[in-house]
């Protein structure tokens, strides 16, 4: 009996991307992404089928590593092969981490090679080096039960007796919305003041759960009347048999924290040309509309209308806030660490 199954070091078959006679592409595009981006009726599968229809000799394949971008940072560090061309679903803090951990860049600068890179809203740009290109964004906000509480409207209200024990948030160490909410408080209270604000929140009996699912589940089970979530909540919950009061979106200080999702081309992609073509396709108006609706996120490109159904129930804050790459670089780990230590003490 042998405990080992060997597989060689042979490269992927058919990844060569010789343009065919008509200037089209052929070969396989390997796209690394998160698991809910692919599957029936997802944005990923729509992109794949439409792109493949336009380029009959191209196959788009998805791979969904459990540990996300860390998989590729570690591969690079360990000298292992990067078996993907494109990464979809990158956020600012992850890009900062990749650059901090690696000597050379994991990704290629593409901004000037894409036809549509300049159509992306400038407020959403996350990479000063033009590698990561945003394709959609979510806004982190409160979702509250209008039957139980009024819209708190400000950060300061959350620490008042009126809202004692009323808020559920997520752990910034392991949850995207949790980290976004923490960063939002830092944007609001400053790096010197946010820990004090959180002490007041904890004093007001805030509940900090692992991730979005348990937090939202606890909210739906009436454990507390407010939860940190997305401003697109009502896209899922509307209609005659839904209590819309339970799905009120609350912005704080007229703000919400923007969490853009970006895509980037790996520096040693086997199919860079094909990758860039796919990125341009993702930024096309048709793709932007589909991604918004299927991913339930706002388009990243200027002037896209995802349709009535979406626009009626998804709210954009009067003032989106987000930290830039430079602001997060060198800071984000320390901010989160200090915060978690403060809470655990």
């Amino acid at each position, binding site marked *: 009996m042998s405990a080992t199954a060997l597989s060689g070091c042979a490269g992927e078959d058919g990844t060569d991307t010789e343009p065919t006679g008509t200037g089209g592409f052929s070969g396989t595009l390997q796209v690394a992404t998160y*698991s809910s981006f692919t599957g029936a009726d997802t944005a990923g599968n729509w992109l794949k089928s439409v792109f493949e229809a336009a380029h009959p000799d191209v196959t788009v394949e998805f791979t969904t590593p459990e540990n996300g971008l860390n998989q590729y940072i570690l591969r690079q560090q360990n000298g292992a092969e990067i078996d993907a061309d494109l990464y979809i679903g990158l956020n600012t803090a992850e890009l900062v981490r990749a650059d901090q951990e690696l000597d050379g860049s994991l990704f290629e600068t593409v901004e000037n090679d894409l036809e549509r890179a300049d159509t992306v809203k400038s407020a959403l740009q996350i990479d000063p080096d033009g590698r990561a290109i945003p394709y959609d964004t979510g806004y982190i906000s409160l979702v509250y039960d209008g039957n139980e509480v009024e819209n708190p409207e400000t950060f300061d209200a959350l620490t008042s007796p009126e809202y004692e024990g009323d808020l559920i948030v997520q752990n910034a160490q392991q949850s995207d919305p949790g980290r976004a909410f923490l960063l939002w408080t830092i944007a609001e209270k400053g790096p010197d003041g946010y820990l004090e604000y959180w002490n007041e929140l904890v004093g007001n009996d805030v509940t900090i759960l692992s991730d979005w699912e348990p937090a939202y589940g606890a909210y739906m089970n009436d454990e507390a009347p407010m939860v940190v979530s997305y401003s697109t909540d009502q896209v899922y919950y509307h209609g005659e048999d839904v209590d819309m009061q339970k799905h009120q979106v609350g912005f704080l200080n007229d703000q919400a924290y923007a969490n853009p999702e970006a895509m980037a081309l790996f520096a040693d992609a086997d199919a860079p040309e094909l990758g860039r073509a796919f990125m341009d396709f993702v930024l096309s108006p048709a793709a932007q509309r589909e991604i918004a609706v299927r991913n339930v996120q706002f388009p990243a490109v200027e002037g896209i209308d995802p349709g009535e159904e979406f626009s009626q129930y998804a709210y954009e804050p009067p003032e989106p806030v987000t930290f830039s790459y430079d602001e997060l670089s060198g800071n984000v780990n320390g901010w989160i660490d200090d915060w978690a230590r403060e809470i655990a003490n």
Partner: protein
Amino acid sequence: MQRPAADRLALPAGLVVTLAVLGVVFYYPVSRVLLAAIDPGGAAFAPIRAILADPFYTGIAHYAFADPLGVPEGIIAWVRNGIPLAAVEFGLFGFTAYQAALSALASVALGLPGAYVLARYEFPGRKTLRSVTIVPFVLPSILVAVGFQAMFGATGLVNEFLVAVGLGRIDVMFTLPIVILAHAFYNAPLVTRLVTAAWEGIDAQQIESARAMGASPLRAFRDVVAPQLIPAALTAGLLAFVFSFMSFPIVLALGGLELQTVEVWLYAKVQSLALEEAAALAVLETVITLGLMYLYLRYEATQVGIRGGGTSQSRRPLLAGTKTLGDPRRLAVFGYGLVAAIVFLGPVVSLILESITGPDGGFTLAYYEFLLAQQASAAVGTVKPLPAIQNSLLFAVGTLLLAVPMGVIVSIVATRDGRGGRLAEALLSAPIAVSGIVVGLGLLQTLVFGVDVLGHRLTVTGPVAVVAAHAVAAYPFVSRTVTPALAGLDDRLAEAARSLGASRVRALLTVTLPLIVAPLLAGAAFAFAISIGEFDSTVLLAEGGGSYTMPVALERYVGNRSLGPSLGPATAMGTVLLTVTAVSFVVIDRVGGRYDG
């Protein structure tokens, strides 16, 4: 008499295979990660020392590492100040050990009476109940959180009942008690199963001899029964401590960040790729859990009495007509039954009910229709339930077939030579004493990324690697259940068989193993359960996403938004997981039970 070489070599060969499997899928990958803390490139052990000297992690103990010479002076100053207890902080490690100790106590308290009932009373469905006891063991934490929420939450069943009978609500969610209860939910079944197995292995004749010599029932219990139960109960308590010590998702899903453990912090460090600090935390965790295990094993080696097999005690009927209600012992059993129903059955039944309850509270089959739709879908990236069930069962059977012989071999080694054997067993039990997060990271950095061997980059992934990884995680359960039973066996039985000409292997198979069928079956069931519930190494080693299992499918359905942000599809898959494992446990016990006595 000249013994054939095959017989002489069977055990050493088995040991070599066991060590090879352990080396490839455990020791090598794990040491790769832990070395970062021991030899980080700068000062040796620097990351570990940094953690020891940090009051956040070690509380008041940090003085011993940060300023050892100042400790006596500090103590004197503290005594002079009137011994203020509030100044004594225990840090993250202290809190983690504290909640683990409480969890272990709760597990033993809730599990022992169960063993008593299963071992000493006869009632319809007893065998099936014994088989399905360890079902909670395989439930993914996100579903346990759902079940507990539905049972103990603000609008949960318990509160609805309390309000209906005019009592006040209880508010236990996101507190330490609910985390401890959840740990007991996972670990009390371990106590019940291990102690039941030990109890069923007690020779009734020994008790009868004691009674015949004039011992009271209580005295007979104290002198004959208790010494054989205590090792099993302590083993289970120790395992409950180790698991609760390294518990991670359930703490944050039910407790919140204020109750975080070392493992939560370790996970955060791995996520932010602070790998030296993560490794240092893992080394300290492992030193504590392995050290505890070694101390316990040395104690156990001094405790085991001799027994000869024979038939187990006959059971009392649980229901004795009208007498039942007048018998305090039987009433206590029913009282325990009620508690067990609330703690164990409650969350499981709540989970099943959630899988057929829509967002508006009405009955729905939408989540099961979702599973059927996934099965029928041709879309790329769809995770289908049927292959998940098949893969889970295939891996679990493979794990059982590999882990049981591995566990038995390690038990034989452990019981052979005194103290050295116990040290060997402690070291070989490392797979349950090392953080699962670290094992996963190690597997990723070695077997998945590839290892340079003679100029070739070798990767080790796919179904065989998954089974090997599962077996390594599972076999300590086999050896932990089998070792005490094996140590208690009278060597003369096997020796008699060999003097009659039986080979060593034949004596093992025909004389020794049949005498320890109950513990062997318990170990086998645990091996199966570990494999079914395993997530971390499965996703890493299952190549290309084709060989996903039930917990992996479940996790994908959690993120699936096609029915909106709902855990409904996950609860439906969870119900499937529960059903498949419950049936499997019954089958394992029925098939294995045929060899009993």
